[in-house]
């Protein structure tokens, strides 16, 4: 107990002590005393250029997540701080993507989500690592992205190592169940990181399940003429055709195959750029029928996934993997921000690395990040049936039975 002896000095001291107590109370009750500063997050996608469709879908998914988070009250542990998205365009080029990361860093973002294409992500994650900027890869499946020892890089969705192994296992299951009608395969892939990596992995794994790779055809993105590749396909007559490319080229290849009356026993893609796309099924049902894919998908038994589907279609957009993967990537970031209770980059990285986030609607195992990769992530097997896309494997998430081999084309 302090006895105040002089009235003037005492009241000044009391005023100063009172102000100090008041200031101390401010830091103890932040959401009472001041408005929460928005958390800036960078959303970087190739919204123009060769992969612009995927880029715009990606951005739409990420923005819907930002809207939902802000509508639900923002980041509660930061006093209801809303997310402030800073949009950037990678123009479908790796160097432009890296330059945009620098700009976002200067703008003071807490984290970046996006990249979409593997070749872009490779450059952008590296640029972000220079500044210790947490980076959540939305799609980019190349395994290299999470194998360079970059502590800032995280990926919630599976990489193509896991996807290809599941795809091969799924193919084996289907082929064996049908009496092994498929013995030869032709791979058609685009020549950047995504396509080449997928093709290499498949060439190694397919012989192990009794399928010989008799031809590999590569092409650049964009390619507007598949006549030569389809001619080679006609000459070699593979049982199985495996495309690994982006949307426009996948559609053109499938249509050219239909046009030239090429009728394989199955078209099985691994991360087929159009295979599990409602847009493709709707626009070209004849070319899309019976195509199988091993790809990213949502859990059809989770209401949140179906609600997002309705919301996306209400905007006049197709519900594609770019949409829900980006949605979940931003949700993952929001969860990390909640747990870090800070917009500090290092704390966010720590929160992501230790994340066990279960509030998602993906058909995954438990979330656990090892070297930036979510070990619980996995693809599912899909097939275009009755002008719709159904999950055929694994049985836990399946809502239809596979048709393998596909009926011959007229």
């Amino acid at each position: 107990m302090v006895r105040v002896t002089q009235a003037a000095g005492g009241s000044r001291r009391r005023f100063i002590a009172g102000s100090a107590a008041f200031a101390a109370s401010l830091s103890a009750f932040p959401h009472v005393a001041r408005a929460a500063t928005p958390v800036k997050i960078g959303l970087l996608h190739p919204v123009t250029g060769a992969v612009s469709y995927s880029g715009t879908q990606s951005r739409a998914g990420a923005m819907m997540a930002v809207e939902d988070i802000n509508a639900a009250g923002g980041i509660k542990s930061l006093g209801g701080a809303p997310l402030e998205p800073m949009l950037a365009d990678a123009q479908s080029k790796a160097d432009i993507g890296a330059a945009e990361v620098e700009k976002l860093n200067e703008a003071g973002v807490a984290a970046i989500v996006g990249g979409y294409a593997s070749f872009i992500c490779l450059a952008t994650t590296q640029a972000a690592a220079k500044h210790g900027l947490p980076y959540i890869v939305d799609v980019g499946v190349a395994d290299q992205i999470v194998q360079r020892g970059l502590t800032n890089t995280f990926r919630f969705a599976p990489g193509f190592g896991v996807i290809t192994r599941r795809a091969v296992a799924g193919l084996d299951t289907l082929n064996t169940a049908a009496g092994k009608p498929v013995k030869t395969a032709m791979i058609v892939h685009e020549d950047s990181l995504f396509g080449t990596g997928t093709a290499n992995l498949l060439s190694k794994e397919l012989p192990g399940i009794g399928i010989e790779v008799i031809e590999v055809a590569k092409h650049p993105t964009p390619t507007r003429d598949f006549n030569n590749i389809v001619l080679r396909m006609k000459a070699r007559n593979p049982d199985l055709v495996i495309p690994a490319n982006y949307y426009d080229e996948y559609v053109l290849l499938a249509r050219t195959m239909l046009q030239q009356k090429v009728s394989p026993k199955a078209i099985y893609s691994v991360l087929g750029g159009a295979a599990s796309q409602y847009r493709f099924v709707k626009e070209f049902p004849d070319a899309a029928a019976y195509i199988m894919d091993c790809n990213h998908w949502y859990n059809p038994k989770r209401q949140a996934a179906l609600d997002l589907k309705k919301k996306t279609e209400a905007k006049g957009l197709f519900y594609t993997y770019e949409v829900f993967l980006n949605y979940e990537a931003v949700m993952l970031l929001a969860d990390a921000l909640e747990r870090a209770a800070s917009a500090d980059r290092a704390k966010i990285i720590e929160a992501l690395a230790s994340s066990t986030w279960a509030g998602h609607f993906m058909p995954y195992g438990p979330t656990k990040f090892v070297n930036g990769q979510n070990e619980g992530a996995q693809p599912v097997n899909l097939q275009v049936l009755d002008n719709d896309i159904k999950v055929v494997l694994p049985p836990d998430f399946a809502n239809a039975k596979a048709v393998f081999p596909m009926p011959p084309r007229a």
Partner: protein
Amino acid sequence: MVELSILVPAILNGITTGAVYALIALGLTLIYGVLHIINFAHGSLLMLALYGVYFLYALFGIDPYLAFPVIVPAMFGLGYALQRFVIARTSHGRDENVLLATLGLSIIIENLALYLWSADTRTVSTPYGFSTVDLGLALIAVPKVVAFFGALIVTGALWLFMRRTDLGKAIRAVARERDGARLVGIDVDHVFAMSFGIGIACLGAAACLLLPSFYANPMVGHGFVLIAFTVVVLGGMGSFPGALLGGLLIGVTESVGGLFLGESLGQIGIFIVFIAILLFRPTGLFGQQA
């Protein structure tokens, strides 16, 4: 190792593409033959024509083949105006300046397109776009067949024009002997502009034939410039039959090259041909000695 059943369709596909290359090269060779200038803006002007055809389809629903009466005169007018008011004025009559003027034009046009219309690839999806013509050994896409015959018809029409009309004769006169033509009263500046206009009008025709089986984006001209130059050099600069034959040859080379070497490496055949021609027959197949 490669069966006839895929070699013949590849050759036929190559011929159809080659006819369009020939049409593009025709414009270039006409411009060179008359004005003695190498038009570096040829590719970007083709790109503009492709966008023109695209927007007519996307905004007004006009089929690319029906866009001829709009696109061809429009491109002619653009070419005439460019030569009369831009290239002739900026070059002050000196050949080196013309090269720079056309190069500058190409950069401006491309970046304007990038700014106005973004880098997205635009395609048209016509109802006949994926139908094929069954030729027994090969199934050739309808747009390619139409492109082939269309290119031949336009080339034939142009040849007739050059042979039979007064303007055609005036153009040939100016190409042969500029000062002599001026002396006999031919308006050489007007002929220059008309020739440039006709050369660019060829691009308009080529764009109408090309878009149904191809696409438009601001960079699309680059690939065509190199091919057009190769065709012109192969056929002989200033020679019409040379441009036609050269175009067909290059089309087949590209197609067969792509078949054997794959899509990424296939174009190498064109450049090997280019270098070989320069080494062994620099005046080209039908060219005259300088």
